[in-house]
């Protein structure tokens, strides 16, 4: 187990290193930051001075190492817009993003699990039909449009909830629903098909041959076994969720990391972009590490292999 943890940790670090490299390459493609930073009409001398100040006159591999070293220390440089460390700008916005992502995941897992189980239990009935139809629609509705529709309905027409911003729990409801819909739909569909598959397994037949009550069979022999693919899915969905948060935050003017990244991109404030992307990638890697551990808890076969 310890060895497994270590090897997964190394995998995660390699992945983050890869992200760092991609971020570095992309940011160098962005063009000469010195030109972007200085007002139009700056002299060549001023440019040279700034380049030296940013370390842009060094050979590329040295810049890379400097950049890597900075990342390790959590130093992404100062934000061009805010004139203070980019990482702290990003971290300030973290609570908002985490609140949104957590509520969306909660919505998705709870609603999705209930809906998926219902669909599997009542297969061939209207319940399954309705759940699956909603899930199909939920998977097909882009977050930004869903967000706009919800605003139109609940904020503009009914005036029940705020259109956006970050004031109290009421303002969390619409963004969390918006962001959680895709997760709900995906989990519902996966759980249903997983359960229907497990129901065909030999060991469920064994359980029924024991004369166990339907509730026992469902809970211990179907649901318990169907959780494993769902847990894997949650890891993948976390990525969708974090990516979706970029758009959702923009739609609802939610002061999170996603919106910050988009704004920083428009302002060519790439230390903030880099720090934001790194933070999100790190969260994603950590989530997947947890998913892997959970996976082992659920499946003794995998536990044994570690």
């Amino acid at each position, binding site marked *: 187990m310890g*060895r*497994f943890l270590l*090897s997964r940790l*190394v*995998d995660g670090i390699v992945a983050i290193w890869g992200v760092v490299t991609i971020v570095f390459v992309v940011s160098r493609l962005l063009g000469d930051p010195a030109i972007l930073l200085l007002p139009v009409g700056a002299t060549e001398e001023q440019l040279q001075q700034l380049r030296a100040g940013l370390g842009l006159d060094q050979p590329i591999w040295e810049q890379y190492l400097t950049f890597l070293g900075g990342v390790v220390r959590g130093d992404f440089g100062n934000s061009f817009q805010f004139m203070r460390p980019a990482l702290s700008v990003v971290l300030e916005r973290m609570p908002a993003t985490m609140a949104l992502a957590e509520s969306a995941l909660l919505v998705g897992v709870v609603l999705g699990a209930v809906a998926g189980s219902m669909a599997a239990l009542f297969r061939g009935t209207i319940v399954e039909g309705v759940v699956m139809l909603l899930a199909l629609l939920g998977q097909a509705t882009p977050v930004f449009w869903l967000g706009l529709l919800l605003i139109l309905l609940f904020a503009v027409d009914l005036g029940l909830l705020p259109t956006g911003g970050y004031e109290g729990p009421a303002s969390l409801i619409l963004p969390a629903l918006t962001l959680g819909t895709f997760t709900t739909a995906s989990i519902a569909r996966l759980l249903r098909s997983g359960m229907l598959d497990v129901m065909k397994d030999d060991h469920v037949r064994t359980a029924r041959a024991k004369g166990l009550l339907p509730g026992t069979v469902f809970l211990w022999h179907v649901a318990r076994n169907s959780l494993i693919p769902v847990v894997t899915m949650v890891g993948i969905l976390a990525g969708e969720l974090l990516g979706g948060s970029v758009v959702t935050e923009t739609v609802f003017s939610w002061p999170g990391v996603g919106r910050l990244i988009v704004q920083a991109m428009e302002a060519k404030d790439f230390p903030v972009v880099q720090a934001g992307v790194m933070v999100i990638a790190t969260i994603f890697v950590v989530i997947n590490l947890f998913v892997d551990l959970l996976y082992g808890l659920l499946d003794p076969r995998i536990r044994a*292999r570690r």
Partner: protein
Amino acid sequence: MTAPLLRVEGLRRHYASGGGLFGRARYVTRAVDDVSFDVMPGETLGLVGESGSGKSTTGRLVMGLEEPDAGRVVFDGTDLTSLSSSQRKPFRRRMQIVFQDPYAALNPRMRVGDFVQEPLLVHGAEAGPDRVAALFRTVGLDPAFMQRYPHEFSGGQRQRIGIARAIALRPQFLVADEPITALDVSIQAQIVNLFQDLQESMGLALLFIAHDLSMVRYLCSRVAVMLRGRIVEMGPTEAVFGDARHPYTQALLSAVPIPDPAHERGRKRLAFDAGGYAFPPAAALRDLGGGHFVLMGEAA
């Protein structure tokens, strides 16, 4: 005495499992461990053992589908293990393999006629439709089936298609890897008879891998018994079946069900723990005379 067509010497294949990014392998499975045997031209050697005994791996090593960790496979005087894959190609004409699972052994996206024709094309042999049709007839199939896809055939028919492909290049030697295990009882005899016919008409030598001991006794002139990667007993079939010396062979023979109620009622099965059995130190195959070998320690 003629020279053997196939000589296998000290063949070894170990699998490592477990381990990760930095760790070394945690378990080593000795799939095949110091296996040696000969097959004479036209002869049928049976290779028996339970699942995981290494008999199928041995067949794959002989065919060069897997590289051995040690040992040699000598075919008609040439050491195949030292050859590059292009040097090996001419030998592929002369030795072929038939697989266990007739459902997995055919390419589901290829017409069976093309599938049987493929070896002829690969080796630049005469590959016209007449030649393929003749092969279909040889294995007892209607050449009209050539245009069909595998899913349209029954298990027995698929196995015939697999055999047609294997004999397309008129090989001298065939590995038959549990060719009847997956078939219905009423079909098994058809396939065994087909093997027998081919052997008589083409002079094929056969390495017949199986776990059905009654069939091996019937079909093979010599038999080798494998246990956990090693041959524990080998010899002329009647010697091994009539006078088994290794406790594992004895247990195996005592367990074969015979379709005779009177015999079964009087049966006493010998206990043998295949997983827990410890090979004696310095065990080697020792000749009991008449080509009957048993794996024994030095003291015996």
